[in-house]
Every structure is written in structure tokens, then in C-alpha cells.
């Protein structure tokens, strides 16, 4: 029997002028791991929340959602009366077809994106027990189940900690554990790893794999990054992009004939094929190996070889990708080939002749006299128009360095100079006008007003105090900035009512109001979908053409490899290696891109997917070496 079936559900938020979900039908059977994929705003979160009725949003819904064959809607009083009258006649079917409060709370668990927002109590043990306490189970049962779950998750070590002391990854594991302790049959996950660093995200996925395989818990997960979940999932459900109604054309696939929110549902291989064939924006989020496969079989790049067809031939993991590449080369009669990365370096915007804008020399920092150094002699140099990516694990001091560079905290030794002038010698109101700007990790932190417009107006007025005595020039400048960032239509929204990508762009508009020379970005790629990342990258490129220097602190190797001019690895308080992304990532074994891991030892020097694909073009006699760069650029994340 289907555990969950959604039957023709259409949903519209109050005061909205279009449906958030349209004609959604899907079913998930027991034990499956299904992934809902689509760009932000496609309605995947809304769908998950509708399934979990306790947190269902307000609005108009039609259609039915059945869980274990019972309607998940709360029984309305009228239906209740009918049910009780039929119960009097000894017929309880009407009664039974609605999910009770307890069944709903117990049977369906949900873990959402923000690890912080889902914690209720102040101590780990209490958090684990919270759900079971609500269910009213006897203390003995609660203690046994909590104990089991704590050991399954390896939580014993921090069982008595305060919840606010935990790391983001631990918090999210705790959220998962305190949901699972209630023994749900269906686990809903809304981009659960979006806010985690790669290592914590990997751990989280490992646990998910275990609970799916070992405990048989059914998973329905919303995700816009497919690199890691594709090999794990049983089924991929592709959702329509909110903005792209063009995909609603009638075509050969059965799913494509309707104009509903769900475009396609099938095995990962089928879904990959579908995304690729329809140039769905999510195709860019497919695993690197898959994208190489499609690039090679697609024929666009002019590679002459053939690859096995059929769904089982589609690779998802780095391992399968390596096999694929090796086979391709075997077919071409060689064992390895090298990718000339000079081409890649020629594309960098900053060369060594450009003037240095920001320079940190031997910077040292600690929080208290007795505590160890967080930074022990970090140095870096940033040139005009350059994009520098600072990578490093958790606790390596990345964020500390960024706040030192932003002049928010002061080093106890070493110096930081902006255009040759010490940061500390900038006068009040000088540093953040026309010099430095910082986009914080949570873009909403820069907003204080009721609408984005008010915030931007304040910022533009503050930063450009009536240049020629009137507001009009300032307003014109603001309008220009908004048009450039394509945020004009969200200006009147509340900062908390827009998507992460939109808010990031709005925040960027606000911090750019001061016309800085240096822009500091804290985890710009976190939680943003493929399209958002692409837009941000294009925007940064434009700004850099105008001379803006950018430092982004990130965990995201793919982002750094694709968009940085130089990368630096911060470890143990120092920048231990630095270089152009090609050389930088080629030397790293683990802290690198999936494409690089895939091509290591097969195609030397290939760092981004584009490099891998281009190497085949080169191999083919250079027939199409430079003819269509736009074509391959699309594949870059």
C-alpha cells in the first residue's frame, strides 16, 4: 500500500494571485527515499508543510493528502458529527478515514532547513524527550526510546549539553534524532543540509542512509542540490520552476502534458535524463559524473566516442564517473591525458600588475588573553578587481579573519591596510563609506525596516548625503542598482517574506550603496539554488569589471573553483596554501571539487566540470576548441 498519496492538490496562499501548487499528485510507498527537486520557490516546502498538517500554512487547498490511507486534514466539526452518527450505527469507516491528532504527530516527522529554529528546549536530553512527553508516553518508555536514539546517533557524549553550545551539524542531528525518537513512518526533510558545512552535511546524509536502510523509515526530501542525494534516492520528483511556465508545453512525456507543479517522477536515472532532455534549470544541479556523461553522449561537444546507453549506464557518484572517464580514454587508446589549465588562467580578471587594495600582514587574534590564538599570523593580499576565495574547515578562523578584515574586530598583532592605510586609522564614518562592505552570512541581518525599499532608501541616503541637494539623484542611483540586481519587484515586500536568493541580492544592494572598493562575502553560496548562484556569480563578475575586489569565505569548493581568481586555505590560524583555483585544487586531494576528484590521475589538472568536458574536445583534435564557449559555460554551476 502507498504510505503517502497526494491526490490532485492545489494550494494558494491568502492574497496571492497565483497557485503555489497546482494539481499535485504523487505517491510514496513504504521504505522509499523520494526526493522533490526544484529551484527555490517551486513549492516544495509548501508541499511538505501541507503533508505535515500541524504546520500546514494558511490558504486554500483542494484535493486530498492521504497518509496510510487516511485523510491528513483535521476532521471538520461537520464531518465529525456525521462520523459519530454513523458510529452509533456501528459503522466506523467514516471515523477511521481521518488521521487523528496523535497519528498525525507520531506518524509523520519533519526536519526543516534552519537547525537553530527547530530546537525548543535548553538541554539535549530534554529536546530528545520533548516529542515523547507530548505523546504522553510513560516515563519508562520515554527513557528507553531516548536512550536507544541517543546511542543510535552517537549523542551520548553531548547528551547533557546545553542546546546552544552545539555546532550547526550537531543541532541538525539533534533535530533529526528528536523527530525519529517518535517512530515516524514518514520523514519529511526540507533541505536539511542547506545550512551545514560539507562535512556535517555528509554526516547527516550518512545517518539518513542508515535510517532509511536499517530502520526502513520512508523519506520524502526537498532538495535543490542533487550532487550527493542522487545516488541515495529511489525516486526523484521534478517540480516546475515557478518562473518558467514555458516548460508547460505539451510533449511526449506523460507528465509534461499537464500544467501542474509536478513535471516528472521516476527513478534517478530517468529523472536525470528528463532534466537533461528538457534543459530544466535543475539539470545544472545534477551530479558532476552525470553531467559529464550527458555532455559526452549529447554530441554537442564533438567527441567522437560512444558510451553505453540505458539507465544503468548513467553515473551518479565520483567512483562511477571515474570509471566512465577511464573507459572513454581506453576507447581513445590512452591512459591519461592532461588538461591545459593555461586557458583557465587566462580568464582571470586580476593580474599581478593591478594595485593591492587590501592587505593583511601576519595578523594574530584571540578572544581572551588566556585563550589560544584563533589566528596566528595570517597574511593575504587582495588586488583590485580580484575575487579571492578563502576556504577552510569549521573553526579554522575563516569568519574571524573576515571580521578582522572588515574592521569589526581588531587583531592584537599584525596590520591590515586598505589602499595602503591602516584600518584603525580610518575615521568614524569613513571606513564603511566608499571603502569596505560586508555581506553577512545571514543576509537578513542588514535589514531593519518593514520593507526592503525603506531599508535601501535609508542606506542610499545615508551613504550619499544629497549629492546635489536633492533626493532624486540618490533615488535614481537606487533604482539603477535595483534594476541591475533584478529586485525591483520585491522592493515592497517584508525582508522575511522573500526567498533566500532574493534576500541575498537585496542585501547586496544595500551594502553596495556605499560604493565600496572591497566587498567581503560570508558564505555567499550557502542555501542558494543553482540559478541563484549563477546570478550572483555573474553579478560579481560585472562588479569586478568595474574594479571591485571581492573576498568570499566559503565551504563550497565548487563555487571557489568556478568563480575565484585565487583561493587560499586557512588552517590552524594561518593561510597554508594559496593559488589560482586550477593549481590550488589540483593539489588538494579531499578539499576539492567533485570534478577534480573524478578526473584525478585521469585528466590531470581538470578542476571544474568544464575542464573535464573540454579536455575531450581537445583530445578530438581541437576541432571545436574555441567555437562555442557559451555552450560549455552553461554546464558550470
Amino acid at each position, binding site marked *: 500500500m502507498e504510505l503517502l498519496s497526494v491526490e490532485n492538490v492545489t494550494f494558494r496562499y491568502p492574497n496571492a494571485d497565483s497557485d503555489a501548487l497546482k494539481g499535485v499528485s504523487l505517491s510514496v510507498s513504504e521504505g522509499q527515499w523520494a526526493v522533490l527537486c526544484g529551484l527555490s520557490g517551486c513549492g516544495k516546502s509548501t508541499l511538505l508543510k501541507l503533508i505535515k498538517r500541524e504546520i500546514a500554512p494558511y490558504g486554500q487547498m483542494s484535493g486530498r493528502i492521504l497518509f496510510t490511507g487516511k485523510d491528513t486534514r483535521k476532521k471538520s466539526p461537520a464531518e465529525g458529527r456525521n462520523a459519530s452518527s454513523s458510529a452509533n450505527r456501528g459503522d466506523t469507516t467514516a471515523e477511521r478515514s481521518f488521521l487523528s491528532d496523535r497519528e498525525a*504527530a507520531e506518524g509523520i516527522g519533519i526536519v526543516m532547513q534552519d537547525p537553530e*529554529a527547530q530546537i*525548543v528546549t535548553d538541554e539535549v536530553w530534554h529536546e530528545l524527550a520533548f516529542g515523547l512527553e507530548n505523546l504522553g508516553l510513560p516515563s519508562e518508555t520515554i*527513557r528507553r526510546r531516548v536512550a536507544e536514539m541517543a546511542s543510535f546517533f552517537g549523542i551520548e557524549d553531548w547528551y547533557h549539553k546545553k542546546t546552544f553550545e552545539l555546532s550547526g551539524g550537531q543541532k541538525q542531528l539533534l533535530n533529526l534524532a528528536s523527530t525519529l525518537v517518535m517512530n515516524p513512518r514518514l520523514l519529511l526533510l526540507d533541505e536539511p543540509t542547506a545550512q551545514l558545512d560539507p562535512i556535517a552535511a555528509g554526516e547527516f546524509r550518512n545517518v539518513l542512509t542508515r535510517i532509511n536502510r536499517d530502520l526502513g523509515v520512508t523519506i520524502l526530501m526537498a532538495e535543490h542540490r542533487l550532487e550527493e542525494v542522487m545516488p541515495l534516492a529511489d525516486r526523484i520528483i521534478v517540480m516546475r520552476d515557478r518562473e518558467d511556465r514555458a516548460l508547460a508545453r505539451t510533449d511526449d512525456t506523460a507528465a509534461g502534458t499537464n500544467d501542474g507543479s509536478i513535471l516528472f517522477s521516476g527513478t534517478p536515472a530517468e529523472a536525470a535524463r528528463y532534466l537533461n532532455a528538457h534543459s530544466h534549470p535543475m539539470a545544472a544541479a545534477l551530479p558532476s559524473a552525470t553531467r559529464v556523461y550527458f555532455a559526452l553522449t549529447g554530441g554537442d561537444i564533438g567527441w567522437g566516442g560512444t558510451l553505453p546507453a540505458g539507465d544503468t549506464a548513467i553515473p551518479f557518484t565520483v567512483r562511477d564517473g571515474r570509471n566512465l572517464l577511464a573507459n572513454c580514454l581506453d576507447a581513445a587508446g590512452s591512459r591519461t591525458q592532461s588538461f591545459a589549465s593555461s586557458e583557465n588562467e587566462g580568464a582571470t580578471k586580476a593580474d599581478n600588475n593591478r594595485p593591492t587594495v587590501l592587505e593583511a600582514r601576519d595578523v594574530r587574534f584571540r578572544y581572551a588573553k588566556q585563550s589560544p590564538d584563533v589566528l596566528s599570523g595570517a597574511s593575504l593580499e587582495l588586488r583590485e578587481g580580484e575575487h579571492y576565495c578563502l576556504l577552510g574547515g569549521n573553526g579554522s578562523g575563516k569568519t574571524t579573519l573576515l571580521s578582522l578584515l572588515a574592521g569589526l574586530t581588531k587583531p592584537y598583532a599584525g596590520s591590515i591596510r586598505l589602499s595602503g592605510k591602516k584600518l584603525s586609522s580610518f575615521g568614524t564614518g569613513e571606513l*564603511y563609506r566608499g571603502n569596505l562592505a560586508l555581506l553577512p552570512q545571514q543576509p537578513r541581518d542588514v535589514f531593519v525596516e518593514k520593507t526592503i525599499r525603506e531599508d535601501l532608501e535609508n542606506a542610499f541616503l545615508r551613504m550619499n548625503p544629497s549629492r546635489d541637494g536633492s533626493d532624486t539623484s540618490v533615488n535614481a542611483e537606487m533604482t539603477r542598482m535595483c534594476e541591475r540586481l533584478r529586485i525591483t519587484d520585491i522592493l515592497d515586500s517584508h525582508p522575511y517574506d522573500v526567498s533566500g536568493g532574493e534576500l541575498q541580492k537585496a542585501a547586496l544592494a544595500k551594502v553596495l550603496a556605499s560604493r565600496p572598493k572591497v566587498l567581503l562575502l560570508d558564505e555567499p553560496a550557502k542555501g542558494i539554488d543553482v540559478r541563484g548562484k549563477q546570478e550572483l556569480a555573474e553579478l560579481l563578475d560585472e562588479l569586478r569589471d568595474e574594479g571591485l575586489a571581492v573576498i568570499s569565505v566559503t565551504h563550497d569548493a565548487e563555487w571557489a573553483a568556478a568563480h575565484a581568481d585565487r583561493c587560499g586555505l586557512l588552517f590552524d590560524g594561518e593561510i597554508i596554501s594559496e593559488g589560482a583555483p586550477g593549481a590550488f585544487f589540483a593539489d588538494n586531494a579531499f578539499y576539492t571539487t567533485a570534478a577534480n576528484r573524478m578526473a584525478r590521475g585521469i585528466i590531470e589538472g581538470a578542476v571544474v566540470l568544464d575542464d573535464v568536458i573540454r579536455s575531450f574536445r581537445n583530445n578530438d583534435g581541437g576541432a571545436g576548441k574555441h567555437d562555442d564557449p557559451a555552450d560549455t559555460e552553461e554546464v558550470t554551476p
Partner: protein
Amino acid sequence: MVVRPRRHPLVPLTILLSVLLIAMFAQTPALTAAAFIGAALYLATAGRTALTWRGILGYLILWLLVAVTNPLFSTGGATPIVFVNGRPYTKEALLYGIHLGGMLISVLLWFRCETFLVSDENRFFLFGRIAPKTALLISSVLRFVPLLRRRADAMRAAQTAVGVYDDPDWLHRTKSTMTTWSALTTWSLEHAIDAGAAMKARGYGLPGRTTYRTCHFTMTDAACIIGILALDAIVITALVAGDLDISYYPSIVTSPVNGRAIAGIIAYAALALTPFFEFLKEEIRWSFYRLKM
């Protein structure tokens, strides 16, 4: 670290309340002294972490202050030491002030003892039983406060970097802090909604909530509580009968010493010293345990 006491948390709580209430309101130097000694001994051994030299100095100053200022307001005594502005500064009032200050300090010390007598976990266990919703409110506030402080720092940094904190004068600074505060409020309220959803998603609001913590109330616990209440009864009998009365004005007169008074003082001293002796017993037991190994 979690200490699971062998006694039900009601036992230390009953001791604490008995000692505190009597210390707060009884007017007998002997009882005050017993309360003070009991708290001081317990804090000096079990609660060493709570005592700092600065804290002790603070208590002494408070004591001195109460003692010295009392005669300025009470002129009831019969033995003037000195005249201030024509008003007598009397010996009786000073002694009363010393007593009063000592009482205040004992009460404060017993509040400090509470931290060690009843662990956090047990306090919330008891509280969660009596007032589950308030306990949940407290638990979530204790989580939010550090979180808000962290968020406030992040927001202040973000606001600084967009030039909000640019002017150094205090008026501007206050305004900027208000701006940060306002942003923090928005964030917190949205966060509250999310937390509320997470609570609901895990079944909050279903009827018949239970608790994780269980403490079995054993016969020994019952016996302990009956014992404590019996001691209370002895003290209160003496108090009601007036055997422990002392009157400071016009000159110090104590009630004649009788059996009930002595019994009351002994009973109260027993209550006040129990935490210290319990701690001592544990220490000795542990030393022997270690010796045997």
C-alpha cells in the same frame, strides 16, 4: 555533569524552604546564628565555587551597612552610645541592626546554597510537575537568551558594516542600539513562529503530556520529609508560644530559657546543618571507598 541524588528532590527542597522561611521571619539571634553557620559551612565545603573574596566582602559590607544604619532610624534603645543630630544612637538598636544584617546575609547565603542543594535538572523536574507550561517557557527562555546575545552581536556587526554605528555621540549610539534591537525583535518573533511550528510538529498540545524525568518517592523519602516537618513543628511551637522571643527595646529582654526554647533551637540547628552533614557524610563515604580500593 549530572548528580543524581539518592533522595527525591522534594527532600532537599523541604529542608531549604523550612530553613529559609524561618530564617527570614523569626526574630531570634540563636536561630539566625544557626542558619548562618549552616549556610556558611555548606557553602565553604560543597559550594566552594560560588564563593569569591569579592562576594564575601560584599556580604560583609551589606551586613555592616544594615547594622550601622539601624540606630539612625530606631531610637527605641535605652543605652545611647553617641548622639547624632541630637538623636540618640543606641546600643540596643545597633545590636538589633547586627542581628538584622546577619539575618539578611543568612537568607542570601541560603539562596546561594539552593544552587547546590537542588540541581538544575531536579528544580525543573519539580517545576515541570507543578507547572508544565511555565517550566517549558523557562526552558525555552534559557535557550533563547544566549542565542539572542549571539544574534545581537552578529546583527550589530552587520549594522556597523552598513554604517549605522558611524557617529560616536551617545545619542546616535543609543539610536543605533535601538536599530539593532528592532532588527533583533523581528528576527526573534519569526524565530518564535518557527520554533512554535517545530513544537507542534512534534505533537505539542496533545492531551496528557508526561515527563521524561522520574523520581521515585520512596519510603525513606517520606520518612525524611516527616522528620523535617516534625523538626519544623518543634521550632514553630516554640515560636508561637513566645519562648524564643527577644525584645530589644527599650533594653534587651529575652524570654526565660525553657525546654521548649532549647528544643526549638536544637531542632532548627539540626535542619540548618543537615546539608552540611550530608555533604560531609558523602565525602567520608567516598574517602573510605577509595581507601578500600
